[in-house]
């Protein structure tokens, strides 16, 4: 009875959480509901990550940092694999995440100037 109860909880959990790792592999299926736009997106996406003035390797590290900024678990999964495959070291990858975090932190703090301006405007 306890086993069945546990299984029910697991099943409920599985069907009620927002993120599922397997969904990453189904990304391409977004064209099912809107083919024309989806196709254009994937064509553009593919082009973006090709070798250009930036190398595909450099773009992978940028993508990893941005993935942490937008806190997308799918993107973090995909670009942790991709950046490591493309030869970035663990230390370099963590440094990239720190860059993302520093920008996020800095972005909050720089608004402190706006707060100070407002306070100075209203304070006696």
């Amino acid at each position, binding site marked *: 009875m306890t086993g069945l109860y546990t299984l029910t909880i697991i099943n409920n959990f599985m069907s009620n959480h927002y993120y599922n790792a397997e969904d990453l*592999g189904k990304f391409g299926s977004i064209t099912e509901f809107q083919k024309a736009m989806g196709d254009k997106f994937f064509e553009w996406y593919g082009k973006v990550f090709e070798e250009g003035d930036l*190398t*595909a*390797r450099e773009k992978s590290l940028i993508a990893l940092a941005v993935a942490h900024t937008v806190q997308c678990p799918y993107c973090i999964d995909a670009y942790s*694999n*991709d950046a*490591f*495959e*493309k*030869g970035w*070291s*663990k230390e370099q990858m963590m440094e990239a995440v720190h860059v993302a975090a520093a920008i996020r932190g800095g972005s909050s703090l720089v608004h402190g100037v706006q707060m100070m301006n407002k306070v100075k405007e209203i304070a006696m």
Partner: protein
Amino acid sequence: MKSSKAKGNKLAESTEQLEVLEHGIHGNGQTIPAFDEMLMKHGRFPLTPVSTSILQINMGKMCNQVCRHCHVDAGPDRKEITRREVMGFCIESLKKNPGLTTVDLTGGAPEMNPDFRWFVEQVFSLNRHIIVRCNLTIIVANKKYNDLPEFFKQHNVEVVSSLPFYTKARTDSQRGTGVFEESIKALKMLNEVGYGKEGSGLVLKLVYNPAGAFLPAAQLLLENEFKHSLKKDFDIEFNQLLTITNMPVSRYLEYLLESGNYEKYMQKLLDAFNPAAIQGLMCRNTLSVGWDGYLYDCDFNQMLELKVDSTVDHISDYNPEKLLSRNIVVNQHCYGCTAGAGSGCGGAIIE
């Protein structure tokens, strides 16, 4: 460090490996389609060979290293090595069959076979292209191997050397502590006699295997990184980088299972399945000879003890016509050679 066989690990047996590959980790079936069904779907079953031009001889499982990804389960404790009698059969086959243009020597560390130099001299006298798959550290492992670069040069050997990465951390994690530094020393010795140097005609290729449960990035992308870093940090030069996908066989299979990566890795191989790679699979133009002379479609089949599907299954009976009519033996590990840009002992199939 001991081989899995010496440790008495069940997975050292090819039957146990095939059990996992064919029936999955729970024994209730693979979660990915059978490889032969995949070939059928793409109109490529049965897989058939073209004329054999490369004779790849595994000269034995003895090695000075015990790498975590080794599909041979090689190591210092392995005593299975090719004897002169089998080498003699190989030489006879080469004499009678000029179509066998290349002899590719692998192991273990083939240089540890006491008849290695004798055999290379014989093959050289037959005017064949010789490839030696050298693990690099053997060159500096003992004084008696220090002159290998000169020996290779004298016999115009193409040296194909394993170096999983251009940094110490990743190389040592796969091949053992200290391997990176020893490999760098050996590469400098090869460079000194002209290997990898422009205009020398002495070819030095490096082999990249991913140090973990992931696939190789594009060969050219990694080659650029390797060339830039090895030149900048160590003044080392080489001709070409070959990226080879790790096969779920032997110790790499053990690693996948122990780290909980097996099913995800197989799925990764399936997701990256590229039918365009089938045409150039190495099993189509290469014949693999085991240390005891038995014939296989590739070195991975050899380690899984899947002999050629032919009445001719030993080098002493080598018959190119009969072998040409065989069907290549496939199993789930073959997904490794069809993933992404494809993979083989010559690196990526599609550049």
